[in-house]
């Protein structure tokens, strides 16, 4: 970018396509309302929430947080690379990001499996209802994000993007970071603070 004149402030546009940002804002609104509902429902069911929260798998939760953060980081590097016209490096970073996403999915499935085998369902109690809804809804976003990443990975690998034209990569990256951002709040909220 050029050095800007002191009097003229030059803003960058939002990275990626504007439509994805409208989508991101809408998604954040949905998650925001879910988080707020959780926090206030807990306030009125304190004992229940505090009791059952102990049985959540904090280790998997923490590992998954690190995985998503790392994945986001790889995707940042992928965007950096494509801006320098290095599409093969970019594809490699994207593949690493995708791999972390896949690992997240595996850990999450194991965690859900454990809960389900204990006979926990949406009807068990209001805490598990929220736990399953929040993590389950987020889980589906991880899957959607991975589909998008896989799509841009293939296109990057086929050298369809370059330094001048990489809107697609930035669009996918923005969505993926949103999935990360949501988990950053979800993990301490549901697994940690009491």
């Amino acid at each position: 970018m050029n050095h800007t004149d002191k009097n003229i402030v030059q803003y960058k546009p939002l990275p990626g396509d504007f439509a994805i940002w409208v989508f991101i804002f809408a998604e954040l609104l949905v998650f925001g309302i879910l988080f707020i509902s959780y926090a206030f429902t807990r306030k009125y069911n304190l004992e229940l929430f505090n009791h059952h929260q102990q049985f959540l798998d904090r280790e998997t939760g923490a590992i998954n947080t690190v995985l998503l953060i790392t994945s986001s980081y790889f995707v940042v590097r992928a965007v950096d690379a494509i801006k320098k016209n290095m599409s093969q490096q970019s594809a490699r970073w994207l593949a690493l990001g995708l791999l972390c996403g896949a690992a997240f999915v595996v850990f999450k499935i194991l965690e859900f499996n454990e809960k389900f085998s204990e006979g926990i369902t949406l009807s068990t109690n209001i805490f598990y209802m929220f736990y399953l809804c929040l993590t389950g809804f987020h889980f589906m976003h991880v899957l959607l994000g991975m589909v998008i990443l896989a799509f841009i990975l293939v296109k990057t690998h086929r050298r369809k993007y370059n330094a001048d034209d990489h809107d697609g990569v930035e669009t996918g990256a923005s969505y993926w970071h949103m999935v990360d951002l949501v988990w950053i709040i979800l993990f301490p909220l549901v697994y940690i603070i009491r």
Partner: protein
Amino acid sequence: MTRFAITSSTKATLIWLLLVLLTLVTYGLGKIGYSGTFVITIVLASVLIKGHHIIADFMGLRGTEKKWRWLMQGWLLLIVAVIATAYRYS
């Protein structure tokens, strides 16, 4: 005021390190099992720091128009503030 170029890989790596560190702290606090205002404050503060960097640096909102930064950072701040309110008397 100087603005750093966000594309710097080193900077991204440093932020990644910070995020992982803060996550480990959060996990550690949960592991010890302490509760109360002090722990909640620390954890929520770390959420704010992490969220801020993801929005500004990973999502790349640093240097974009004010309204977008307000919208995103405002969302983060609002959610954390509401959570803090709901947890205050527990």
